[in-house]
């Protein structure tokens, strides 16, 4: 399904797009299995239409929205962003979506809304990974942003990639994209948006707090306990050119977002 984006994404100079087949064939979406090729193989039956999004918490427009109604008033934009996985690989991806701040403004959060919590669909009949006895994650997957992060103009709610509707393995029909944070923050197949006063739970942070922080900002100076974050492999890499590049602070978006974390100890708030 072709999407009509009102604006073209700005090309990142000197950084090639990761080809569509790799963007849609190399995914971490544990609801569909642990291997990178599992989501593509197992997610094709995901029913994404109709799709409801539950809006709740500290806002004046709570309710159960049809995804089309939530998106309808807004123009779609293309955004070309780096995606940096916490496993130390990265891609460059042309997303299509709506800036989250536009959606949030319409939902009219109250003064008590300090955070936004997102939740992925929980449906073991469609998501075999949620049935796994050996999983260390608690379903449903959930993630959160501080309000100023959610309102930042870079933060996108994506509905498409490469000009087409999102395929299920990439988080169809509606996912978050926060380009300066590790990929796991960019939660997929969202069914709930909740405005909260307290910091919400975040699945990876809850599973292994010493490895995954709530903020999860890309930071080459703060290593994951089991591997270095100083470099990354830009995919696709070829065998005799591993494509190891230096990881940049806030994934190269420091000019736009560093001010959000002024005065915070990023070793503590990783």
């Amino acid at each position: 399904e072709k999407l009509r984006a009102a604006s073209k994404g700005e090309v990142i100079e000197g950084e090639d797009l990761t080809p569509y087949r790799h963007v849609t064939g190399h995914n971490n979406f544990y609801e569909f299995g642990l291997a990178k090729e599992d989501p593509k193989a197992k997610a094709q039956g995901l029913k994404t239409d109709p799709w409801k999004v539950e809006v709740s918490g500290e806002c004046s427009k709570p309710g159960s929205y049809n995804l089309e109604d939530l998106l309808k008033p807004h123009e779609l934009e293309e955004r070309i962003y780096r995606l940096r996985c916490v496993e130390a690989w990265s891609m460059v991806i042309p997303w299509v979506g709506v800036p989250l701040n536009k959606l949030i403004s319409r939902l009219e959060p109250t003064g008590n809304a300090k955070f936004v919590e997102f939740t992925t669909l929980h449906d073991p009949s469609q998501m075999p990974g949620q049935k796994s006895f050996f999983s260390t994650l608690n379903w449903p997957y959930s993630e959160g942003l501080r309000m100023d992060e959610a309102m930042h103009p870079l933060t996108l709610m994506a509905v498409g990639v490469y000009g087409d509707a999102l395929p299920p393995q990439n988080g169809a029909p509606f996912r978050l994209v926060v380009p300066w944070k590790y990929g796991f923050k960019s939660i997929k197949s969202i069914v709930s948006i909740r405005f909260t006063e307290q910091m919400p739970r975040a699945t990876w942070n809850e599973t292994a707090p010493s490895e995954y922080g709530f903020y999860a900002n890309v930071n080459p100076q703060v290593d994951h306990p089991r591997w270095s974050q100083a470099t990354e492999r830009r995919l696709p890499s070829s065998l005799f050119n591993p494509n190891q590049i230096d990881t940049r602070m806030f994934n190269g978006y420091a000019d736009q977002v560093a001010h959000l974390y002024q005065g915070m100890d990023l070793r503590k708030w990783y």
Partner: protein
Amino acid sequence: MVLSIAELHRSKVGRRSFWWLLFLLPLLPLAYIAEAAYSLDLGADPAQTIVTFFGIWTLRFLFLTLAVTPCRRLFGWGWLQRYRRMFGLYTLFYACLHLLSFATFILGWRADLIARELSERPYIIVGFIAWLGLVALGITSTRGWVRRLGRHWQQLHYLVYPIALLAMLHFAWLIRAGFGEVLGYALVLLVLLGHRVVYWLKRRSRVQHA
């Protein structure tokens, strides 16, 4: 006519052909991954795919090597003993491919990256120590070394047990969200090592009662 493997080993031709069979079969995984790499069939992250592939096969050959003694004792497969060294050397072979492909395809032989991996990553350090152990066992696997080391040879080669445990730890340390696969391998190792503990305990009690 059904010919058992034990009978096959009574003739020289039988022994020869079986040796060739068991020498060539372990090369199949290498042929498989080489073919996949050649036809560019390894996805977006071929380096990771290859390194993981060699790592898993190292563990499988290590388990195969460790299975020789229990199989001999439990099923009376005396003929299997003569292939134990070959299985052990294939373990080392795949471990070397695992390490080489990591250094080449993932680290690109960048000295700074290698130094960091070897000094800071516990799972890499543990895997590297296990590899060093395998090298020591591989070098001393020749007839000459068996003779030279005498009774110390067996003592040295008991190192295979800590090596197996380190390799398992190296694998388990990579768990992110699911422990099913690692648990499967750990259970196999538990059986392989558990058999030895049980055997040793039984023998000790027999000696004490004699």
